[in-house]
């Protein structure tokens, strides 16, 4: 299917998932007859996302409704639930349910390719009345407000005069399947795909406002969608894009010999076949197709083509892949259990060891393959961002371009699915807050008038690093600090470092933009990013230089299932420390240890002092070294914290399969004590995986 449908499918899936979440929240909340602040934040986020993606898909009615509901919860969020009086609460819950139903039915319509309900006024006025009630105003005042927002598609007169412009003599008329719906959007998708290989100045299309104006659908239905090219070669290469788009019934090529007065009424002149054939056209279908009469046959062979391409791809449920990874992990462990079984000690087994080596080779291969199955390139997610930058460029009138770097970097499927939102928020943020408002400002600062956002991905072997770099204004520390103090996030009496100030940007409820816009500026964006990334086991950091721009770095482990760990022992227990967190291991004598006033221990490493945490004492173990001379200090670092963990012995580095601890023990909050999970060692015993940052937090002022 065409790219348009892919995006549409994604939208439908996402929106449905969000609506499901929303429903669960509201159902719970209604039982309690109140929304907790968390609920409100969550609903707010959901509406924000629905609003954003609906706007992207140009479902104006959905956007408008979502925006109003977001406004409603904005009030509640600012003033807590107490702002809604008891008698208004049922109405509030009803309204949220109504809106869920509304979105569901509209999304169903989208799915079924039916036209959307254009009449949202009564629903909108319901929302407005409620907002007014909550604000304690007269409901009457809501009426004019209700009339205003429904920005019904203006009957923008499709320019009738067809552009038989002199500059674009090579035409292509595309006719869509009857009743396929959203012809304007489909046309726009076509334009987007043509832009990939054809400069914008080298072609034009008609009607020109397909993107903004849904009314153009009708024009397209009646007259077809006209594409005009400067060069014949471009038109030829555009044909494969047209044929591969969904719902294209037929297309005709034609030339404007002279600017005819009514070219679109004149049946398209069948293209000179010789010209088309001259093209390198890889697709056999393309040259055969130009005539309307042969369009049916063309469609048939075209289908055959796509089907052939699809046969090599099988889509598999992710849960099956999860199962596969789990089983392969088991096999790897079992294999080493068998081959290093104590029963084999002292036996001379030539053929056994030969087979065992073979088995090892195969299991390694199996592991690699099963890992690679889950890896997909980030390009799909990255491509989505192009659209966002484009839209915002237009709406905000700030020219900017998006440069993608390393979009072929492969990461685990689950990660790809979840990094879309954080990246989208960061890009919006860069567009909205980063890039200067006017070109003059940029020119004055000695920058290219067109802003640039670089979205890059690279993998370091153990983690993938995604950077969003803009060359905008950068972060103004003073403004951020003032705002943080105003929001109650920062305290006015404390001196904050540059880095700490930047961290305020990631705090919930923080937003430096005073203006509420469709894209960002309500302080939802940044903490969504942080939370989303942390859920994936990654972290976000911001660097910025005033006037030069801002860089957001997202680091995410490549796969969540396997990592490199260092095994250490403390008494009879074995712990795994993620290799990424280890700076070095040190041998010290008790003379090097400095005792501080609160009976803590500190050691000096490379001209800096670091606190020591004794694993034995911290975890209250029965056995293990007590003398610094007998054990070893592991210098660990994670984020801001750096310290030394005192353990007995280093056992060696190992790739481990991360297993979650059973929920039964997780209930005891052991994650907060730096116990992150566990892993099975080659001999079947269990090693506990440490979380370096949480361990430090628990030991020091946790």
């Amino acid at each position, binding site marked *: 299917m065409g790219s348009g449908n892919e995006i549409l499918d994604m939208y439908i899936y996402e929106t449905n998932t969000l609506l499901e979440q929303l429903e669960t929240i509201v159902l719970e909340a209604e039982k309690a007859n109140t929304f907790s602040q968390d609920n409100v934040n969550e609903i707010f986020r959901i509406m924000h996302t629905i609003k954003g993606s609906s706007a992207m898909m140009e479902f104006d009615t959905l956007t408008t409704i979502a925006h109003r509901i977001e406004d409603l919860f904005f009030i509640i969020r600012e003033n807590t639930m107490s702002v809604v009086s008891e008698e208004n609460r049922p109405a509030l819950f009803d309204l949220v349910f109504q809106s869920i139903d509304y979105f569901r039915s509209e999304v169903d319509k989208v799915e079924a390719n039916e036209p959307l309900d254009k009449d949202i006024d009564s629903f909108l006025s319901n929302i407005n009345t409620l907002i007014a009630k909550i604000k304690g105003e007269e409901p009457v005042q809501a009426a004019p407000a209700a009339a205003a927002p429904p920005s019904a598609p203006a009957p923008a007169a499709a320019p009738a005069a067809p552009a038989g412009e002199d500059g674009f003599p090579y035409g292509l008329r595309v006719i869509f399947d009857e009743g396929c719906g959203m012809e304007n959007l489909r046309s726009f998708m076509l334009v987007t795909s043509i832009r990939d290989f054809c400069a914008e100045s080298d072609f034009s299309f008609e009607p020109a406002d397909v993107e903004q104006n849904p009314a153009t659908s009708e024009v397209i239905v009646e007259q077809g969608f006209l594409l005009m090219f400067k060069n014949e070669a471009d038109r030829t290469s555009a044909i494969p894009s047209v044929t591969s788009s969904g719902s294209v019934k037929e297309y005709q090529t034609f030339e404007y010999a002279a600017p005819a007065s009514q070219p679109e009424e004149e049946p398209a002149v069948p293209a000179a076949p010789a010209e088309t054939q001259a093209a390198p056209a890889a697709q056999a279908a393309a040259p055969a197709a130009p005539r309307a009469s042969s369009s049916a046959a063309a469609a048939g062979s075209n289908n055959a083509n796509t089907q052939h391409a699809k046969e090599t791809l099988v889509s598999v449920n992710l849960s099956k892949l999860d199962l596969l990874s789990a089983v392969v992990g088991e096999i790897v462990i079992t294999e080493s259990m068998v081959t290093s079984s104590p029963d084999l000690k002292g036996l001379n087994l030539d053929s056994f060891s030969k087979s065992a080596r073979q088995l090892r080779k195969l299991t390694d291969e199996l592991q690699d393959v099963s890992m690679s199955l889950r890896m997909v390139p980030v390009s799909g997610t990255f491509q989505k961002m192009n659209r966002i930058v484009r839209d915002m460029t237009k709406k905000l009138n700030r020219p900017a371009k998006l440069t993608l770097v390393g979009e072929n970097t492969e990461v685990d499927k689950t990660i790809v699915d979840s990094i879309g939102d954080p990246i989208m928020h960061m890009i919006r943020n860069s567009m909205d807050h980063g890039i200067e408002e006017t070109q003059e400002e940029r020119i004055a600062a000695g920058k290219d008038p067109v802003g640039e956002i670089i979205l890059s991905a690279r993998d370091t072997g153990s983690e993938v690093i995604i950077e969003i770099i803009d060359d905008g204004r950068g972060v103004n520390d003073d403004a951020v600090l003032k705002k943080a103090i105003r929001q109650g996030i920062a305290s006015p009496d404390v001196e904050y470092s540059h880095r700490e100030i930047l961290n305020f940007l990631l705090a919930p409820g923080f937003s430096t933009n005073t203006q509420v816009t469709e894209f960002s500026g309500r302080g939802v964006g940044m903490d969504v990013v942080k939370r989303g990334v942390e859920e994936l086991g990654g972290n976000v950091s911001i660097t910025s230089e005033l006037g030069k721009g801002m860089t957001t770095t997202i680091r995410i482990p490549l796969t969540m299932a396997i990592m490199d760990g260092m095994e250490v022992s403390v008494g009879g227990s074995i712990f795994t420390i993620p290799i990424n967190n280890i700076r070095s291991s040190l041998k010290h004598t008790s003379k090097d240890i400095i005792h501080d006033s609160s009976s803590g221990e500190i050691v000096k490493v490379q001209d800096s002092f670091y606190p020591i945490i004794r694993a034995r004492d911290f975890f209250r173990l029965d056995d293990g070294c007590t003398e610094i001379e007998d054990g070893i200090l592991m210098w660990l670092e994670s984020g801001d914290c750096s310290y030394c963990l005192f353990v007995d012995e280093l056992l060696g580095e190992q790739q481990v399969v991360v297993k979650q601890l059973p929920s039964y*023990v997780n209930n005891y909050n*052991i994650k907060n004590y730096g116990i992150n999970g566990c892993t099975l060692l080659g001999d079947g015993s269990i090693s506990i995986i440490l979380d370096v940052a949480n361990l430090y937090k628990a030991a020091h002022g946790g």
Partner: protein
Amino acid sequence: MSEEILFAAEDQVFDFSSTQAEEPADFQKFLIFMTDDLKLGVVAEYVVEILNNQSITYLPMVPDFIRGIINMRGQIIPIVDIRLRLGKAPTDNSLVIVLNVDGVFLGILVDAVDQMLDIAREDILPVPVQSTQLLVSGMCSLPDGSGTMMVLDCAQLMPDD
């Protein structure tokens, strides 16, 4: 006429539901194990398997009665020492009964496994209010006269929240 049918149907429904409910209610299979001279019984449906000589990995920062975790064919299972849970002194016992209570896997460390028995549901009596015991939801005299069985309350084994 129609009334008759209605009544008949109602009766049948009643019969049906009562037989359905009573048939398995008559007898329930229990696995009986020993902990510090106490005979405890656990509903056999919960029992996944019995493991011997498992090496239990100590897990820090959890209550004492959680002795640690074990690896049962790749599955990580927490182990609760019934002795410690009941406030008795621990021993070197290493017999684990793995239970699956509504999807939560849990191993319990016991002294010895006694036998499997079918016990009529009506024979299980409530624990006297004056001497309510931890982890016990009922008690019954064993039909072979070998003593009294306490019914292990698996719900109480679950974490408090």
